[in-house]
């Protein structure tokens, strides 16, 4: 159910601009349902996922 993809931001610029990537790392969840810039600790990731999935 979970897929995690490292995306090289320079190589896939269309995707980077689609999600407004301005700083790296940026984690984009479910096609922009959430965007988190900077390193994301597991607890924050879990909180973001809970927030999105409960919508």
């Amino acid at each position: 159910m979970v897929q995690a993809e490292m995306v090289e931001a320079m190589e896939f610029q269309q995707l980077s601009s689609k999600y407004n990537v301005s700083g790296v790392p940026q984690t984009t969840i479910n096609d922009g349902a959430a965007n988190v810039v900077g390193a994301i600790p597991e607890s924050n990731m879990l909180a973001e996922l809970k927030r999105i999935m409960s919508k």
Partner: protein
Amino acid sequence: MATLLNADVVKQIEDAFAPMKESVHILYFGQKENCDYCDDAQQLLEEVVAISDKLTLTIYDLDDDADVAKNYNVDKAPGIVIAAKDGDVVSDFGVRFAGIPSGHEFTSLIQDILLVSGRDSGLSQETRDFLKELTEPVLLQVFVTPT
């Protein structure tokens, strides 16, 4: 052809791979056109896989092997899937790279291989419990630059 990894780096990777327990299978997806880094990415993986007998690699083409790509949800080239392998059974752990894993991301590649080899995400029980209950797929895309 000149190697991408020098002897020192190969030695470091050998040391890192030494504790590897289970086998890891890497699927690589290239593309014939409009792929500046495909050749380098493929060569890099071939050199990494040669370092450990617990690693295997299959080379695919995003267009010629569209069914395999679709099966693994790969839509970019170079595209890399780090999967588990037990006997002849390949298990997808959802780990992907889009783009060449160079620079700092080369470390991520090596760590992902070790993580999949260990067959343990290292996540907390709370996270595992939440993920177990998922009813819809989750796609995490981590944008990085190779420097």
